[in-house]
């Protein structure tokens, strides 16, 4: 029984570390900042999962409040990227060829978007 618990918990740790390593690949070569924003969201979830597995292995509850803080504030980074950085960021590699028609009136859209912010 104890052996099965150890195998499952350590296997969970290995899976989480592997997922974090693969996520770093996506952050490294994500073509736009929005991909990195989504990746950072998943990184927060992976940190929560790692702290949870650690708390389950050692049966301590000291770090659960840190889980709470990360779950509560983890979304602010991606909100900031989506709101303020991604409008300026223009990645060179577009995923499909059909976006060219959208790209043409990108500047018009951006000006409208910033103009609508000044209205109350």
């Amino acid at each position, binding site marked *: 029984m104890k052996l099965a618990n150890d195998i499952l918990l350590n296997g969970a740790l290995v899976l989480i570390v592997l997922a974090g390593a693969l996520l770093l690949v996506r952050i490294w070569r994500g073509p736009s900042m929005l991909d990195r924003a989504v990746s950072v969201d998943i990184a927060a979830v992976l940190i929560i999962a790692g702290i949870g597995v650690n708390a389950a292995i050692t049966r301590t509850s000291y770090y659960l409040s840190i889980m709470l803080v990360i*779950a509560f504030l983890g979304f602010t980074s991606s909100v900031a990227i989506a709101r303020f950085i991604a409008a300026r960021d223009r990645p060179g590699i577009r995923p499909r060829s059909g976006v060219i028609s959208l790209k043409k009136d990108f500047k018009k859209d951006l000006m409208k978007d910033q103009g609508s912010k000044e209205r109350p």
Partner: protein
Amino acid sequence: MNWHDVTDLAGSILLFAGAAVCLTGVIGMLRLPDVLTRSHAATNPQTLGMLLIVAGVALRLRSGVDLGTLALVAFFQLLTSAVAAHLVARAAYRTGQVGEVALLRDELASARDRS
């Protein structure tokens, strides 16, 4: 084999399943081609994986204060991931990073042209 052993084993199985769900979400992040499809893959660890992990930790710890903290973790994660995903998808659409070929119908286009 009393009920402590049973809940411990069930918690371990849930934790392992949650970690596996997180790994599948990250594999989806690597393989899917677009911001919206990657956001779709990211939803899986953010909801199901996190819920499985939290349930597993709750089954292993089994005390009142910890259960309250874990319930708050699940609640806030479910609340905030939707906000972040909505803003990221909106910014992706407005800056033209959505492949129009992959969409059968772009129903937002008329609203975007009108605005």
